[in-house]
């Protein structure tokens, strides 16, 4: 097992599936009008890349995702810290946030358009909202899960409240917070697809809607694939951060 490089091992199943898919398309087992073959998708991808169309839509989608995620995650971190650190903060924020969380925010797009107009605001709000809850919940939980003996240690050595937050609470909450961030990447990205499919003139989601109207399945799948690749890259970045920020841990890495 160890002779095959790890990355290759991980790629084995997806590559196999794609090969199988191509094979099914070649033999006519799947209808090309409903599902394009991998080869057609590659062709569409090359064309859209050459024309610059894909880059433009990707750029605008990325901008929305990053802006929304930055807003959502920042606000969520602040709210999570406030609620996590003090009972007062918890009483003030937590029930409200939990109540809003139960609303299906993906269904709120029409409202957002009414409130924020037709510009970028409603879409960025959607992404922000999508990333807010996972980050908030995990920051809050991370803080409340900090070993209280370490808080005791801080008091025993008479450190200031600020030092206690910086040296004990924030690093202690970090593993959980980063899990929240990884979840948030997923929900943010998903919110973006939905937002871009409703009332947008650009972005990958818009590309999908247009292609749907024209029944261009290769473009739909290309756009989905791009979504997926960006999602994987974003996740890899967070995992890299995780590995650096949490290198003090001794954890089970899988046998």
């Amino acid at each position, binding site marked *: 097992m160890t002779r095959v490089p790890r990355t290759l091992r991980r790629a084995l199943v997806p590559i196999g599936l794609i090969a199988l898919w191509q094979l099914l398309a070649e033999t006519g087992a799947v209808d090309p009008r409903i599902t394009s073959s991998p080869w057609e998708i590659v062709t569409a991808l090359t064309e859209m890349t050459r024309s610059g169309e894909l880059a433009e839509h990707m750029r605008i989608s990325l901008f929305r995702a990053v802006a929304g995620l930055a807003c959502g995650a920042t606000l969520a971190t602040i709210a999570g810290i406030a609620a996590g650190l003090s009972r007062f903060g918890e009483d003030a924020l937590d029930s409200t946030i939990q109540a809003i969380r139960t609303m299906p925010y993906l269904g709120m797009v029409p409202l957002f358009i009414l409130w924020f107009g037709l510009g970028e605001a409603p879409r960025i709000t959607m992404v922000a909202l999508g990333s807010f809850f996972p980050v908030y919940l995990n920051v809050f939980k991370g803080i409340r899960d900090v070993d209280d003996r370490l808080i005791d240690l801080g008091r025993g050595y008479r450190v200031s409240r600020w*030092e206690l937050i910086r040296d004990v609470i924030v690093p202690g909450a970090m593993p959980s917070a980063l899990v929240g961030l990884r979840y948030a990447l997923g929900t943010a990205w998903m919110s973006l697809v939905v937002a871009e499919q409703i009332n947008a003139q650009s972005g990958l989601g818009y590309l999908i809607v247009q292609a749907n109207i024209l029944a261009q399945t290769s473009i739909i799948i290309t756009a989905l694939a791009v979504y997926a690749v960006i999602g994987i890259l974003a996740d890899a970045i967070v995992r890299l951060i995780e590995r650096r920020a*949490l290198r003090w841990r001794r954890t089970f890495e899988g046998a």
Partner: protein
Amino acid sequence: MTDNDPATRRTGPAISLRGVGRTFGDRAVLQGVDLAVAQHEFVVLVGASGCGKSTLLRIVAGLDSDATGEVQVAGEHAIVFQDARLLPWRPVWRNVAFGLRGPRAELRARADRALAEVGLPGRGDSWPLTLSGGEAQRVALARALVRTPDLLLLDEPFAALDALTRLKMQRQVAELWRHHEITTLMVTHDVEEALLLADRVLLVDSGRIAEEIPVGLPRPRDPRDAGFAALRHRLLLSLGVDLSGDRGHAPTRAPAPARTRARTHA
């Protein structure tokens, strides 16, 4: 309730407890504890596990806001908890310098010196979770010693150490106590350790200080000494271990969960 007035710091007692009590739920773990520790005194607390020694130490450290009674502690104190209690996300030297202020290079140098003193030179960059139990406990000791406190509170600080390292660390603490005039209040369940280090051994039982055994032996002390053996015998008896009959020689350690036997209190 820390009294930082320099005048009392030099003249008054280092620790003064009067009528101190602590209940958990409806269980009174400590009740009516009176304790006075003089400046530069080395006092050791012994007693069965669960009798409230750690609780008492935490009260002295000002970490228990639910304790009743009067607590006065003079000067700065540093505590070594029963568990090493290191921050796993800070390298060892950062743990040693925890709460200290100053330029990074200077803190690092101080931490490294303290680590060398506890026999862990060059381990400053290790992560706490990679240390053995005994190493972690020595880091915790270095963290307390690096700030040369007026009062050192030690909760079974050598329990996880191997016999050889324990001897070294005991000597280390004894040296520090002698040279820096540090008042020390230590919890241990090791009778020999208590007699090696203490000016006074206090036996905690039934929520109060049940017995006081002054150790008048000259330092450095030798466990083979006749006076030492007599005191050990007496202390073990107080802890409920009678060795006069069946065994040829006393073990160095008392069994941790001790006695239920009734006894008149000193």
